[in-house]
């Protein structure tokens, strides 16, 4: 297996570009992304405003450049938190089984039983708009997926002879679990993490679009698309530009994750969508 196919290289370049732009975005914008100028609303692309302006005259290019920061950060943080909690719970469920397993597995069944968007909308909607409720919503929605995969892997690894060997030489349960079984899961988890980040980028954008996520006037792709819906006929770029950014971001993460999966030779598509 080649280390990297052309496809994966292209994806990594795009992903790197988006991340870099988001990192230095606020320093590099030609205009203040929040500065409105009603006299120049809904202008088309020009030399001054590279992509034109929105309905209250803010520079679209500057807003697009800054529009990924918050949602990327939010998607990655939320996924990392879900990974951490799902990882620990999955390890415990798979290793100790019996009562621990029953409790954790039942809980994860319950959370998987609620369709993702339902749960996130209900939680974010009832807790109020904002970063904190989005974090809670996404973690509640994605921990169970991680925990289920980790549990399955631990059940398989427990049968391996190295576990018996370690126990024979007197290693305790937690030592075996965290120092010897856990590291074997790294590859799988990286791939699942990446696919989940891609999904959560879309979730964050969808919630912001619904007005349950990041608050306007934050320059955010999801918020921008919602703001621009009425003016779409006049200036399609207002919806096209942020939309394409979201697509490119999640697409490049997905392709990179596929590459990683092939490289680790995991064969099967892991994790449910």
């Amino acid at each position, binding site marked *: 297996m080649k280390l990297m196919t052309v*496809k994966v290289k292209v994806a990594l370049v795009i992903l790197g570009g988006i991340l870099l732009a988001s990192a230095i975005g606020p320093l590099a914008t030609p205009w203040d992304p929040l500065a409105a100028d009603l006299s120049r609303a809904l202008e088309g692309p020009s030399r001054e405003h590279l992509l034109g302006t929105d309905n209250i005259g803010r520079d679209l290019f500057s807003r697009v450049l800054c529009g990924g920061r918050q949602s990327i950060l939010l998607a990655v943080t939320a996924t990392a938190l879900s990974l951490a909690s799902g990882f620990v719970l999955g390890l415990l469920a798979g290793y100790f089984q019996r009562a621990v397993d029953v409790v954790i597995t*039942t*809980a994860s*069944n*319950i959370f*998987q*039983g*609620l*369709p*993702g*968007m*339902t*749960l996130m*909308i*209900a*939680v974010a*909607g*009832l*807790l*109020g708009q904002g970063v904190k409720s989005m974090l809670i919503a996404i973690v509640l929605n994605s921990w169970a997926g991680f925990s289920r995969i980790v549990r399955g892997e631990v059940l398989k690894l427990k049968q391996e002879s190295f576990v018996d060997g370690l126990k024979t030489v007197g290693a305790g349960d937690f030592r075996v679990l965290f120092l010897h079984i856990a590291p074997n899961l790294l590859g799988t988890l990286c791939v699942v993490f990446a696919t989940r980040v*891609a999904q959560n980028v*879309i979730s964050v*954008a*969808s919630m912001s*679009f*619904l*007005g*349950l996520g990041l608050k306007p006037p934050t320059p955010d792709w999801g918020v921008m*698309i919602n703001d621009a*819906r009425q003016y*779409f*006929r006049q200036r*399609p770029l207002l*919806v096209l530009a942020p*939309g394409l950014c*979201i*697509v490119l971001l*999640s*697409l490049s993460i*997905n*392709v990179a994750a*596929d590459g990683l999966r092939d490289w680790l030779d995991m*064969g*099967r*598509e892991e994790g*449910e*969508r």
Partner: protein
Amino acid sequence: MWMLIQYILKKMALLAPVLVGTSVIAFALGVMSPGDPVDQVLNPNGNESYTQEEYDRMSARMGLDKPLHVQYINWVGNLLQGDLGRSFFTNKSIVDQMARRIPISARLAGLSMVFTVVLGVEGGVIMAVWKDRFLDHLLGACAVTALSVPGFWTAIMLIWLFAEKWKLLPTSGIASGIGYLLPAVTLALPSTGVCARLTRTAILDEIGRQYVTVAASKGLSRRQTVVCHAFGNALIPVVTYLGTHMAGILGGASIVETIFAVPGIGSYAISAVQSKDYYVVQAYVLFSGMVYVAVTILVDLLYMAVNPRIRRGEAGQ
């Protein structure tokens, strides 16, 4: 037959905690939400005043003065009698509203499932047959793109192209049956991508097996080998995915329903969340959980139909 019933009962027993858990979560979401339901009833416009006495009376009438566990039991009790309460704002019975909206969401979900199954499974089979050839790469790229596009953006693009630019289809609403087309396509797009990829991997997993090699060495073409031999055994993960997906879009097509103004369950939930109408949100969460449980049982039955080993093995115990 008896074994079959036993098997189904066993599955239902496993799913009972899920149902109870869902109802607890649904109830808790309502309790934890900000905003005071008593205030919302007494003061729906935000400009009416009331005395503490009136407040207490209303609170008692709504059963909100009792401890939480009593409130929960009352709620479940009403639920079992088919009463989910009334919306704070429209004062319409929630059960009636749901009963009117569920068929609409079901039609939308069903149509979208047809697209997903037909295009996704066929796409997966073609990719597996032409593995590592041009067609595989092309469809693979389409599939990964399809699952990376957010539904709300697809919806806006489709409305723009088909309804506004070319004026072929209605922008929104389901006055005519054709109105279901765009929302169904929007919903089907990402799941078709996932389904195609799953089908491909599942078939390729089977292709290494001996019985497939035997079929191929008998001189069957690659397509015949894949479709007649590997396909049946590869179906399990695909059916599992399609099941969860179906449960998801039956209750969770909220964004697409909202954009296309489809008066289904999902758009009902969104408007309830936005107005903090928490009885409706509770009912919605509960409904989604119930759909999930029902679909899970159906998928299990499908497994038995697809795979004789499960039919004999598990049901016999």
